[in-house]
């Protein structure tokens, strides 16, 4: 997984980068199955590896698929990244250990969901019960976000066509004709 991430850093062919990002998502999905999150793995494989990759390939078709040559290593960002990483790792030192059943995250509502969701909501899959019932507002907000993003995409990409139709001879539409 780290290998795909780092090779994405070096590669200049954007098509390969996009494909590697799909592979990276699939690796993440495998990792989720190992950590018991089967629903998340489904979603990551379908949405993260599938739809994202298709969207990026579509963008590549509309723009350019080669990156210009650039400096190999820029030291300012590298120092910043290493500093941030160091601070984050320092922050994990007093985190609960992996797989610890007494971690604070397991001592609040999660137990109630596990014990009661079968009788209160019904479906055997606890994640479904929480998503659709206990935290239904989250899902409502999520659909609102997706709707807003769809409108945003339409506004951003759809505008030029409209201009063309309204004012076919206006000089403004020639701005973007270099592509």
């Amino acid at each position, binding site marked *: 997984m780290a290998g795909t991430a780092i090779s994405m850093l070096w590669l200049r062919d954007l098509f390969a*980068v996009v494909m590697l990002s799909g592979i990276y998502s699939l690796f993440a999905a495998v990792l989720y199955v190992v950590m018991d999150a089967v629903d*998340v793995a489904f979603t990551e494989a379908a949405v993260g590896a599938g739809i994202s990759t298709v969207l990026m390939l579509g963008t590549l078709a509309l723009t350019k698929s080669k990156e210009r040559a650039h400096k190999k290593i820029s030291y300012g960002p590298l120092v910043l990244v290493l500093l941030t990483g160091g601070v984050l790792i320092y922050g994990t030192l007093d985190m609960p250990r992996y797989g*610890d059943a007494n971690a604070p995250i397991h001592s609040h509502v999660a137990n109630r969901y596990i014990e009661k969701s079968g009788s209160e909501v019904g479906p055997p899959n606890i*994640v479904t019960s929480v998503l659709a019932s206990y935290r239904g507002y989250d899902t409502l907000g*999520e659909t609102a976000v997706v709707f807003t*993003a769809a409108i945003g995409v339409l506004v951003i990409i759809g505008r030029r066509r409209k201009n063309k139709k309204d004012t076919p001879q206006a000089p403004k539409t020639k701005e973007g004709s270099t592509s």
Partner: protein
Amino acid sequence: MFEIHAGLFNYWAAIALMMVGFYIVIAQGNLIKKIVGLNIFQVAVFVFYISMGKIDGGTAPILGEGIKVYSNPLPHVLILTAIVVGVATTALALALVVRINRSYGTIEEREIIEINHAADHDEDTRL
């Protein structure tokens, strides 16, 4: 030292991935590559969350006969929502890239800045 901190390896792996994504976002000039970097960062955060929900000996949170220990379902729910929202934001960012390419004819950050500078300079000389 490794034995003491062995249980923290999951966090460190997530942080390493996060930093690779962060570096791509701030150091690379290509806009599509920046978005890919943002995705790497995002997935690293997801891995971080899911790894916190894991319990030793637990199974996937699907009710069944004779199962005592389930992993925590709450992070799974939160990350399900986050994945879908992440794709929505990615789509919006890619739309912006397409629009930028239409206006400037390039998706390299440096060239866009140069074009803007040249345009500013033109206006100054005309005045």
